[in-house]
């Protein structure tokens, strides 16, 4: 069961991510990114992080991607012209692919913990909102407050940046 879910979700996630990089129309890129983020949320569920999966869908696939699509529509971004691939770039991409395909499995295998098997229901962490909230409001309360300040500053920054006529 674990194998079926992992492999189908992994293939879907990597396909959607490649489509984000390869496709030329910005709207297709954004929609593919939404699909990829939903796949990632499903992978969070297979890791028993249920609350994070919900947050991923609501915040990432919902709010952030709507912002992206809104800006694409607002700016009326045209399809990017396909530029000819010059050979140094092709060589670079080829070398990168070879290094990644050969290197990543070796790098991962060098971690002793990477042999641990995934068996559902035997995880020591629970992804429930209650446990996450307990941690968030006790050990990580200062960080949580700092995040609130960060979001406030970001909001003010966005308003200042997007003002049409900056008066002194």
């Amino acid at each position, binding site marked *: 069961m*674990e*194998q079926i879910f*992992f*492999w189908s979700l*992994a293939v879907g*996630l*990597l396909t959607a*991510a*490649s489509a*984000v*990089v390869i496709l030329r129309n*910005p709207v297709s*890129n954004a929609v593919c*990114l939404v699909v*990829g*983020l939903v796949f990632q949320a499903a*992978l*969070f569920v297979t*890791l*028993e*992080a249920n609350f*994070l999966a919900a*947050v991923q869908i609501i*915040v*990432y696939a919902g709010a*952030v991607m709507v*912002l*992206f699509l809104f*800006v*694409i529509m607002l*700016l009326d971004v045209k399809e*990017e012209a396909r530029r000819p691939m010059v050979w140094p770039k092709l060589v670079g991409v080829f070398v*990168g692919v070879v290094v*990644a395909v050969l290197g*990543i*499995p070796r790098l*991962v295998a060098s*971690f002793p*913990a*990477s*042999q*641990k*098997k*995934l068996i559902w229901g035997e*995880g*020591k*962490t629970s*992804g429930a909102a209650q446990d*996450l909230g307990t*941690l968030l409001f006790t*050990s*990580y309360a200062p960080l949580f407050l700092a*995040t609130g300040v*960060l*979001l406030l500053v*970001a*909001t003010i*920054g966005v308003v200042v*940046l*997007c003002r049409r006529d900056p008066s002194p």
Partner: protein
Amino acid sequence: MITGDITLGHYLALSGFLFIIGLAGVLLRRSLLIIMMSLELLLNAANLALVAVGRFQGLPDTQVAVFFVITVAAAEVALGLAILVAIFRVKKTTAIDRMANLRF
């Protein structure tokens, strides 16, 4: 390999490949919008690795870290898109090779 058990290594490798794809997007594409989407892919690769390590090593703290990463990513996207809109009003383009000078 396909029929074997799923291990932490599988998730870490998937995260690594996702990171490589996002990095390729940041390096190869010219549109600022697509570069920001690829940055989201990079952050998601890190999130996946964090959640996987937390699940297999029994560390619930990593999920809190992912929570903060998602928050910071949302703020980053809002600010980045605001800067993009401000630049687009002047330059009428999202291509980064047209944004190489410091003053407009």
